[in-house]
């Protein structure tokens, strides 16, 4: 569907000539899913139909204990210091942001009275300010009122580099002003299409000013409330043993009627993923277990216990293959894979094309990941509105042989193809992790049939993912021809995710290999597309640029998607909970309940 037609349809909806449902159906007919369609409407100024609440309990409490099992328990409970999801999930029992991301990548108000839109005056036309109206009558767990001062304080707290908050990136480039007791304004330096970052989702949880005001900056680590959270959330803090246990009790003054349902909540840590799945699916000792990186086969077997079921929540995390554009075997000015070099064989586009035909995503999904890793060729596939339909998965060894033959890569006596004395021999690295080693083997085997010799290398995860500048085996140094890992996408906006393809982001010695462009691809075309997304305020056009950027990278075989890595969790058969791949597992905890 062309952009103009799309606009025509949106215009009709706005004018009342076409119903919302009619629009969504028209979009589905051309392959755009309902969530994506409703997002397009929302961003075009048509109010979103808030999904009817599925919350059934008619009174607060009475649900008994809610028992959560995180096989790595939270180690701290200040959301601004929360490193991994475990800490954020733990903090989220007590703290809330202004708005949370729902499973479709749409915003749901929490401490905000409403989601800012152009129509309600929340979003300025120039893309420079966002005005948040706060919910009134909300109190912190200690009874103090929640006001605009608290919101402004969180900005001051997080943006101060001396505080060393992990949330700093969301706050350092904005200015937050109090308009009145229940209104705050977020100002950007330049037009910002993705405005829902500060105060939203995983990095938007709000801490109370009256308890943290004295601990801003270098004193941040001394705040007693770091370990005894006082928030606005559905549960109030009771006890915390880092890495082991977090407990909370129902907040009798929670700001949403009839919520929460459970009387107490506990989040137990420790152990391993398989036994965590077992405790929910087989013995029913726990109600919910998080992040089950377990083979699907085992999960299916445990599910037969009948006490619970596995749920797979799509997000944006992608396991993908990277093809080096530079030469990893030549050292220039003290670094290999230098921007000043070109890869001796991978620089031939025909070789890349052939390699793309040798990646058998389907088999990798079927034999290794199952439900926990749907195959995809895209690097950017979520939320659905960014998922390109232009990159079908093709696995064809004969065709790969054909392409190489035509391009002049002839098989030698050893069965390995060569041209001008250069052999098609690659080193392919990843971290030590069983599914990854199996994936490596599948790709190596297929490559062998096409006369490409792949040497497999696996590096301990703690080294591979470290930022140790002295170690040659880190994924950012990329001192091999091919590599594979999962990159996470924490927000439903691809802005950071797509830095992977921006020339100036290339990981080099000069930036201590902290650039996000690991393949070091230098493409003016990609830079232009990314540039468009940075300034474009129209969400439809912006999504189109992101999709084009993804297609450009995939069709030039800079990277190749292998499988999606959705969030996998186990829940009790009676537990009702909405898990969002774009927010913390516990982001919607206030709405969790059990069927009677």
């Amino acid at each position, binding site marked *: 569907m062309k952009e103009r037609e799309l606009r025509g349809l949106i215009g009709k909806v706005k004018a009342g000539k076409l119903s919302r449902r009619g629009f969504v159906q028209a979009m589905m007919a051309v392959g755009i899913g309902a969530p994506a369609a409703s997002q397009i409407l929302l961003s075009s100024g048509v109010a979103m139909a808030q999904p009817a609440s599925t919350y059934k309990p008619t009174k607060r409490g009475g649900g008994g*204990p809610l028992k959560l*099992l995180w096989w*790595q*328990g939270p*180690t*701290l409970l*200040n959301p601004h*210091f929360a*490193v*991994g999801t475990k800490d954020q999930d733990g903090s989220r029992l007590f703290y809330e942001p202004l708005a949370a991301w729902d499973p479709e990548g749409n915003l749901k108000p929490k401490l905000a009275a409403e989601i800012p839109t152009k129509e309600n005056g929340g979003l300025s036309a120039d893309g420079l300010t966002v005005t948040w109206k706060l919910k009134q009558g909300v109190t912190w767990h200690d009874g103090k009122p929640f006001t605009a001062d608290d919101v402004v304080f969180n900005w001051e707290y997080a943006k101060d*580099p*001396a505080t*060393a*908050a*992990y*949330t*700093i*990136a969301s706050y*350092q480039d904005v200015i937050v002003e109090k308009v009145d007791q229940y209104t705050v304004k977020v100002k950007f330096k330049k037009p910002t299409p993705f405005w829902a970052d500060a105060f939203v989702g995983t*990095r938007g949880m709000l801490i109370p000013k009256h308890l943290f005001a004295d601990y801003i900056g*270098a004193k941040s*680590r001394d705040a007693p409330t*770091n*370990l005894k959270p006082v928030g606005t959330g559905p549960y109030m803090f009771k*006890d915390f*043993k*880092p*890495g*082991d*246990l977090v*407990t909370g009790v129902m907040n009798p003054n929670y700001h949403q009627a009839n919520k929460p349902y459970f009387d*107490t909540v*506990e989040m*137990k*840590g*420790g*152990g*391993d993923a398989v*036994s965590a799945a*077992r*405790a929910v699916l*087989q*013995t029913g*000792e726990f109600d919910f277990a998080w992040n089950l990186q377990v083979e699907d086969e085992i999960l299916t077997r445990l599910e037969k216990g009948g006490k619970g079921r596995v749920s797979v929540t799509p997000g944006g995390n992608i396991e993908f293959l990277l093809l080096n554009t530079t030469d990893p075997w030549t050292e220039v000015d003290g670094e290999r894979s230098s921007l000043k070099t070109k890869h001796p064989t991978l620089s031939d586009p025909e070789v890349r094309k052939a390699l793309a035909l040798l990646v058998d995503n389907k088999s990798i999904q079927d034999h290794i990941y199952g439900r926990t890793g749907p195959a995809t060729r895209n690097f950017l596939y979520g939320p659905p509105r960014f998922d390109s339909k232009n990159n079908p998965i093709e696995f064809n060894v004969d065709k790969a042989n054909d392409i190489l033959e035509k391009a002049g890569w002839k098989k030698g006596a050893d069965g390995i193809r060569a041209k001008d004395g250069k052999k098609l021999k690659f080193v392919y690295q990843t971290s030590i992790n069983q599914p990854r080693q199996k994936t490596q083997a599948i790709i190596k085997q297929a490559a062998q049939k096409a006369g490409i010799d792949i040497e497999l290398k696996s590096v301990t995860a*703690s*080294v591979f*993912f*470290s*930022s*140790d500048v002295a*170690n040659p085996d880190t994924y*950012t140094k990329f001192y091999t021809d091919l590599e594979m890992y999962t990159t*996470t996408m*924490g927000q439903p906006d691809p802005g*950071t*995710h797509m*830095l992977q393809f921006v020339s100036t982001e290339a990981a080099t010695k000069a930036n*201590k290999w*902290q650039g*996000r462009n690991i393949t070091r691809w230098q493409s003016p075309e990609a830079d232009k597309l990314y540039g468009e997304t940075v300034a474009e305020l129209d969400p439809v056009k912006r999504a189109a640029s992101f999709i084009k950027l993804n297609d450009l990278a995939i069709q030039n075989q800079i990277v190749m998607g292998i499988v999606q890595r959705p969030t996998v969790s186990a829940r009790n058969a009676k537990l009702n909970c909405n898990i969002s791949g774009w927010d913390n597992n516990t982001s919607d905890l206030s709405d969790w309940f059990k069927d009677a």
Partner: protein
Amino acid sequence: MQVHRVSRQYVIRKLLIMIPSLLGISVVLFSLLALAPGDPFDELATNPAVPPEVRAALRAKFGLDDPVWMRYWHWLIALLQGDWGFSFVSRMDVSTLIMQRLPVTLIVIGASQILAIAIAIPVGVLAATRPYSLFDQVANTFAFIGFSLPTFFTGLVLILVFSIQLDWLPFVYRADIAATGWAFYWEHIKQSIMPVTVLGLFQGAALVRFVRSSVLDVIRLDYVTTARSKGIGERKVITRHVVRTALIPVVTLVALQMPIVFSGAIVTEQIFRVPGIGSLLISSMLANDTPVVMGVTFVSACLVVIFNLIADILYGWLDPRIAFR
């Protein structure tokens, strides 16, 4: 009086020797940790949302950019002042973290040691009094099996049988039990049964064989024969004369084995999610939280040295033939 004075000198000398050995251990531990790859803020590097400056600020704040010897010196000075360091990951004092976990470990290890002794002494003594009888052979076989099977294996077998098949016992250990009164104790006992059994049987199996051989050594001695010839009942000979003497080396062994029990507990704690220092050690290692790893390993090192000292002293105290020199 004479003995007492000598032994005090002996203890003091032993205590003084402890200082350089603990210093040496701490140097080795510290340099090993400093050489190991990875740092606690690695997770930040792969997180696109955290700018490199924050990492740099944190590294500077926690002194990770200083040379190793300087960091060791700071650590040592702080330790002498009773400061065990500050956890990078939890942002709290290492000593608080360890003190939160230590009681559970001590209870589980203590209970399993008691179980081990309670099984090993009667079985070992009985087996020794009737060597090569059917009972002895059965006991020997089980002892072999017991200490050959690693704790992670027996732990999983117990979980499969008692939690999953029979559904009798919980396999997730919880330090906070909501119940009060008798129910509270009952719940605690119920969840401790499996970890304590796993550790206790493992220890007990090794002890059985030791008790047996020790009793066998003593039972052939002349003074036992004399006791018997005086007409003392067999039961009394065994309990009063044989076991008392035979247990002297066993006591030392139990003390010397304490460090091994601690390392066994690390695995068991992980399987049953017991919030002890073992699981703290594992999670800290996974998170590269070096101050906590250093704290826990140093505590275990101290325990090894202290239990060695206790074993030495106990041995001399129980067996007057050993001279303190």
